[in-house]
């Protein structure tokens, strides 16, 4: 075939994409721009980033620097056209460099091991010579047994120079690196499918309310195809501290008005229905509704009779069988006392909800005080009855991350293959052994040559074992 001096354009582009240099350039571009992206806070308020940029460009230069970075897309850089182009170039590089090398590797994988000339066996990276007193025919049996002992099944061929036994294992492990490359492409493909056919939305759902849609960025509504209701939201704390232990939302899925699924979700345990997943992401209190919630009480008399009672601020209740009457006159979402003992509200969220109740007992006795949801010791009333503050319902909302990602399974499969590919690439190797058996005066000379394309030292130990298994009469090779 005639070799043309001029490569075609396709060849040139192919060559470029297959080159390691190109990979390094793409790696560096992704890495360097990513570093900028970790310093500039993504999708943040302009003021925040101007403050960050002021550290690098000074107070006067920061606004100008901000507008330049903003125009270049650095404020949401991981979704900018150029960053996605880098990722696609990375994928193209991965595909082409793999395709470029795979035919050669495939040949090694497919081609079965063949006998070699004794000279060639002696030139392998691992070599050993063993001399036995036995006749060649017997030595061959011993050698076959030795092969079996280290887990290899030898083939056999004979020539006038002697008999040769040879075996190989793990030829497919040479493909490990391509399995790894392929898995990265699968992950990228899964991510693209997720972006193209899925959505990422948010929903702030107040207790007791139902929604049939969520909001994507820019307040775009996305229909769920069913309805979701928040029955209750609650923050649990560690002991008496304000350190949150769990954020929990009781959700109900409704289809055409009928309940089809119920689940209490927490962070790390979302609810999935019809391919759409609801994640516990944030929470808050609707300040405008703060006075309009429902106070849920459990009233327990001295002899243990209890009754659940719901009312609102300003409402009254009676402890069953006692005649003690209470009226709720005040509410605080987070109550504590200052140094002088005066109560005050320290948080807008329901961190430590408390109600103020004025009691009047038969006989004209009056007393009043704060009852805390989180502190049962405040529930006890004089005379042994109790007013348990169960919940203040209807003023909190749960912040749900709502996501549909049809590419997720593909990403997971890709991750699994990646792990497998890495294992094959780093912890397994293609191992080959040749054993040349020839007659020597008074015995048999066995020449062992072996190679492993990775972890040679470990394989060398195995070859030592093989040589030892051949029996005594071993003379040290090198």
């Amino acid at each position: 075939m005639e070799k043309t001096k001029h490569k075609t354009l396709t060849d040139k582009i192919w060559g470029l994409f297959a080159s390691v240099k190109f990979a390094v350039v793409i790696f560096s571009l992704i890495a360097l721009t990513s570093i900028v992206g970790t310093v500039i806070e993504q999708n943040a308020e302009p003021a925040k980033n101007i403050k960050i940029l002021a550290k690098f460009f000074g107070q006067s230069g920061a606004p100008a620097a901000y507008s330049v970075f903003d125009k270049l897309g650095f404020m949401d850089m991981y979704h900018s056209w150029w960053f996605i182009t880098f990722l696609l170039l990375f994928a193209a590089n991965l595909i082409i460099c793999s395709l470029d090398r795979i035919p050669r590797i495939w040949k090694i994988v497919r081609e079965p091991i063949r006998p070699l000339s004794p000279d060639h066996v002696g030139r392998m990276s691992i070599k050993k010579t063993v001399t036995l007193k036995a006749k060649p025919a017997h030595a061959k049996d011993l050698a076959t047994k030795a092969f079996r002992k280290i887990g290899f099944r030898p083939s056999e061929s004979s020539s006038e120079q002697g008999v040769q036994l040879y075996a190989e294992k793990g030829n497919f492990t040479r493909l490990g690196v391509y399995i790894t490359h392929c898995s990265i492409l699968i992950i990228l493909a899964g991510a693209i499918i997720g972006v193209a056919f899925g959505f990422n939305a948010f929903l702030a759902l107040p207790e007791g309310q139902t929604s049939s849609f969520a909001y994507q960025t820019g307040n775009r509504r996305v229909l769920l195809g069913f309805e979701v209701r928040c029955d209750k939201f609650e923050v649990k704390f560690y002991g008496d501290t304000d350190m949150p232990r769990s954020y929990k939302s009781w959700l109900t899925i409704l289809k055409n008005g009928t309940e089809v699924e119920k689940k209490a979700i927490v962070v790390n345990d979302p609810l999935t229905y019809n391919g759409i997943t609801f994640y516990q992401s944030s929470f808050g209190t609707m300040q405008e509704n703060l006075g309009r919630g429902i106070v849920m009480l459990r009233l327990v008399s001295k002899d243990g009779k209890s009754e659940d009672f719901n009312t609102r601020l300003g409402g009254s209740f009676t402890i069953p069988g006692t005649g003690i009457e209470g009226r709720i006159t005040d509410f605080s979402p987070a109550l504590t006392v200052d140094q002088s003992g005066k109560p005050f509200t320290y948080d807008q969220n329901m961190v430590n909800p408390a109600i103020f109740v004025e009691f009047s007992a038969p006989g004209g006795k009056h007393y009043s005080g704060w009852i805390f949801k989180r502190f049962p010791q405040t529930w006890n009333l004089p005379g042994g009855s109790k007013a348990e503050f169960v919940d203040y319902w209807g003023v909190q909302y749960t912040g749900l991350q709502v996501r549909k990602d049809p590419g997720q399974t593909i990403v997971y499969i890709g991750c699994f293959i990646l792990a497998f590919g890495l294992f094959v690439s780093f912890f397994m190797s293609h191992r080959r052994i040749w054993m040349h058996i020839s007659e020597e005066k008074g015995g048999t000379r066995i020449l062992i040559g072996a190679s492993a394309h990775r972890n040679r030292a470990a394989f060398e130990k195995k070859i030592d074992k093989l040589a030892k298994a051949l029996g005594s009469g071993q003379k040290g090779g090198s």
Partner: protein
Amino acid sequence: MDSSTFFGISTIAYFLAMVAYITYLGFKKKQIGVAATLITITGFVSQTIALVLRWKEFYAVEQSFLRAVPLTNLYESLIFFVWCLILAYLVIEFKYSNRSFGAFITPVAGLALAFIDLSGMSKNIQPLVPALQSNWLLAHVMMSFISYSMFGISFSTGLMYLIVRTEKKNEPAYIFWTVMLSIFIIVLAAMGLDYFAFKVTGQSQQEFIKSYLFRATFRNSSGAIETISWGAAVVFTFLVWRYGGIMKKVIKGFNISAEILDEITYKLIAIGFPIFTLGGLIFGALWANQAWGKYWSWDPKETWSLITWFLYAFYLHSRLMRGWRGKKVAIVAVVGFVAVVFTYLGVNLLLSGLHSYGSQ
């Protein structure tokens, strides 16, 4: 006895081991070497006991074996990092029958533990915030730190390789290692000064790292001190560059060939890389998907892990595909660990993001 007693014992043991290893290098007496190894093992066992005790103490709070892994704040993660470092070192010592590294690794371990003590980092057991309450915690964090410590040792062997292999003072590799080593020492020294300045000002302990980093030196309010600090750093770097040959002589006295250093560097990365990929990136992504509803959100920690991953992927490719050996790849190994340190500490201390657990 509680966990902190045993942590104390291990800190002392690592310092004693350091003295023993250095004496061993000086006198080459076998008994001293054996003693050094035994002291290190004592420290390691004591630290293991401490970790188990801490786990038990945490279990009393968390009531879940998998989630009570003592790896949820900076204090615990540094301790686990040191533990992995010593374990990996002991394996290398036995495998290569060479004690020379001990003089390098034990001071790092001792200093790290002492730094934890001095900095006044919170040692209290902190209950898990909701986002961390997952069984992924154990696998993700533990594997990440195991790989970090492997990368850590590959950094030191890579640096030693460069020290041994460079000849001329104007050679890029020589300039690279002298500058790198200088920065390493300068940062440590500056942090030490911060500690003393911080003791003087008596500010709150938690904010130490976040607000006081380099305040005593490079970020000082007084312009003069700031200038002097930079000047001292430059002079120090120059001195290391000028007298780097001494380091070379010291390491040459270790009886460890450059080839073995290169091999250890490669082996550690070849084991650390898959562990990092699986535990750090894959498990991290799976967990993020469960907790945050996104398996990849370009959070600074994720991005820096990816950069680290790229660097080590580059190391492996340049070595396996291009057949690079020696100085070039050693430089990549050293740079890779700088990225690891930034992923581990820098992101938490300097940038904000979802992964802010490690900074308390």
